[in-house]
């Protein structure tokens, strides 16, 4: 089977989450993604699981095999070449690689690619149809030099403001994960494919920029529109929907276990009553239709929760989905790991992660009939493909390679 992006070579100088996730998506469709990396700056490769959980003593770590789980997660199916881009000779080698590549993608700090002469204007002189992709945090402008992580941008765009219950204080709103990074990564991967499509039809390369702040903001288009049209900023709305009741997250049996139930119409409501074995309270006129239920959500939710608290989250899901109601367990990490559906769909990928042994990762969140990589490869150790890149792609001789090693260009 020919892979969708077979023959497309990507030079990946991204780190952290958004960048590596975008190139990993390209790799899952068959692109050859090469990561020029250097011991000089290990970035996420050297990160422990979560930074708070342990401080790595690098003097005790074998750098040659260092592949942190977080690095593994975003660099499956890629190749690694040791190349120190902080050295001018390193950049010259890089430019030779550009000649035999299709895409260059970076998310380095603002200004670095230009300083290093790896910007689109320079690289297109080397290869006319190159596609150069930049993933800055904020892009050119007054805050161009700001260092941000994805969580900062959730706050900066107004996303964090809107993510909570109506009474959640600002400090406690849910801006604690990489969600914006995944979105920026997926959007960038799509923009790259659009540029490839254009190149396939016209032979033209181009410069693609997806600023992470703008990708994150695109998630919140509706809130900005509500502000511009209705001149208001709605407080966070939590789990309720103003159109439907019951529609909420409910406590289940055992500590910190939850489920969600969404009733969209009278048919759903009758099914729910039946599933709950026709409780007396549900006959009360104040619950007789959507309008009255919406007026009495507090009491309604309490009644529903009296029932859900007697069940596990998956029991609630099973009972209600069996009669066709949208209900689900609020799955935690353990539930996800053992999730039947994800397993049955082939979503899970078990691979070796450095010397951590086998680790299970999320595979791509979409499936094609053909052209997609079916067997993922683990993330490479640093410089794993040096021979392939230096000898096969660039045709360097061993003495030339030895000099590059000696000068810490291959490092």
């Amino acid at each position, binding site marked *: 089977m020919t892979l969708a992006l077979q023959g497309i070579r990507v030079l990946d100088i991204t780190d952290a989450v958004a960048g590596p996730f975008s190139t990993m998506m390209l790799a899952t469709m068959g692109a050859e993604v090469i990561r020029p990396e250097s011991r000089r700056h290990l970035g996420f490769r050297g990160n422990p699981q979560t930074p708070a959980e342990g401080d790595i003593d690098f003097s005790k770590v074998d750098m040659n095999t260092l592949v942190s789980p977080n690095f593994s997660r975003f660099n499956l199916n890629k190749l690694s070449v040791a190349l120190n881009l902080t050295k001018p000779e390193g950049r010259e080698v890089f430019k030779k690689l550009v000649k035999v590549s299709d895409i260059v993608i970076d998310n380095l700090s603002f200004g670095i690619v230009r300083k290093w002469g790896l910007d689109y204007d320079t690289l297109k002189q080397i290869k006319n149809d190159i596609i150069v992709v930049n993933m800055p945090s904020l892009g050119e402008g007054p805050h161009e030099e700001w260092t941000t*992580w994805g969580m900062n941008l959730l706050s900066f765009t107004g996303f964090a403001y809107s993510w909570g219950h109506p009474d959640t204080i600002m400090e406690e709103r849910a801006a604690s994960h990489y969600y914006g990074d995944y979105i920026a990564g997926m959007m960038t991967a799509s923009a790259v494919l659009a540029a490839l499509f254009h190149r396939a*039809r016209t032979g033209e390369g181009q410069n693609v920029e997806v600023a992470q702040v703008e990708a994150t903001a695109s998630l919140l288009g509706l*809130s900005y529109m509500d502000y511009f049209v*209705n001149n208001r900023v709605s407080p966070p709305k939590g789990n309720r929907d103003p159109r439907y009741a019951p529609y909420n997250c409910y406590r289940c049996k055992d500590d910190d276990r939850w489920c969600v139930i969404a009733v969209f119409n009278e048919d759903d409501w009758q099914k729910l009553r039946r599933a709950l074995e026709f409780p007396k309270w549900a006959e009360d006129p104040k619950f007789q239709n959507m309008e009255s239920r919406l007026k009495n959500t507090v009491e309604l939710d309490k009644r529903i929760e009296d029932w859900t608290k007697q069940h596990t989250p998956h029991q609630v899901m099973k009972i209600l989905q069996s009669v066709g109601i949208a209900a689900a*367990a609020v799955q935690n990490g353990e539930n996800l790991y053992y*999730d039947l559906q994800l397993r049955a769909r082939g979503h899970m990928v078990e691979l070796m992660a450095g010397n951590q042994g086998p680790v299970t990762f*999320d595979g791509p969140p979409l499936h094609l009939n053909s052209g997609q990589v079916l067997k993922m490869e683990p993330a490479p150790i640093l410089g794993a493909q040096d021979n392939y890149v230096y000898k096969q792609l660039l045709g360097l001789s061993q003495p030339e390679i030895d000099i590059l090693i000696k000068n810490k260009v291959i490092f």
Partner: protein
Amino acid sequence: MNDAFTSALSGIKVLDLTEERGLYAGKMLADLGADVTLIEEIKGSKARRAPPYRNDVPGPENSLYFVNYNTNKRGITLNLGCSEGQGIFKHLVSRSDVVVEDNEVGFMQSIGLDYPVLRSLNRGIIMASITGFGQTGPYRAFKASDIVSFAMGGMMNISGSKNGAPVVAPCEQSNHSVAIAAVFGILTALLTRIRTGEGQLVDASAHEMVATCASEVMNYSNTSRIGQRNGSQFGSVPGRIYPCKDGHVHILTVRPNHWQGFREVMGNPATLMGKEWDSGVFRNKNVDIIDALVTEFTMSRTKMEITELCQAKGVPCTPVNTPAEFPDDAHIKQRGIFIEMKHPGIGCFSYLAPPYRLSRTPCSIRRSAPLLGQHNQEVYCGEIGYKPGELAALKDKGVI
């Protein structure tokens, strides 16, 4: 020389059957230059009945939700429940490149318009099915709305404050994110088709996309630990939203240089100078001591002052904005990401431009969201050749 290809997806014809979960997919393709036609049932898309509305007055041309997700698309009405409507749809498929749909699994088959049928009409057709749980697997028939996918995918359990209930994200993120994933699949299929001439089915599942974003599978697999809610806190302390003189700031100290920089910004308080404070693990055990000092520092300064001080030392810190403050930020204004739009029902308003900047084939907003049936004449008469009389007859029969 390439005037025909001023947009990346110029000339690509997309039929968009989505009503909710997949709406953003068609919009993203349209922003990249595809000709996207939204096909609505006669009484109008469900999205026209979704809030918020202009001035809170419901009405088919008043839904901001509809306008937000359908700007740049054309719109026609078509009754897919009758055989004549299905016949017209098949004709449209025979001259299109992509079909996007977000119906429950099995629905397209029940009306005789599933992928094998469409493929028999046009072997190059690419069909993207965007659903809650995907086309296969034991949960495929489960009912899934945005909150269900957010819960099942594991994002919800790690969103919210430590002692509160899990909370879903604003603006239907499970829908939004899976639509973006589907576009990635559609574009991959378009590229493949250049070589093979064959289309294919793209199967995108919100459950999987949310699970991917939650990162919990790898976490559990690797550490056997279950992720917990912890408000806005990420990584080492301090690493969350803090109050300040005029609002809030979001400060992170993930890396050692972040911590050292931030300590300097605070004026190197004597309490925090011991080497043990360089350890994130140690800091996380002494949250109260750090929080007291951080808050004392932040409360006497504005969000912009704190941000500038932190950024000068390489500490990731930004102001916390509301959706009203963000468009007003100097950087955002200069980037020009909000553009003026005009819609017959909504009037003039500022609208968020697409985030993909392609130098040679820039995205463009070419039209506002379609009014109900706005392009019926253009498509049915202008493009597939019905006479005005025939169109009227189809209308009388409830087909269009």
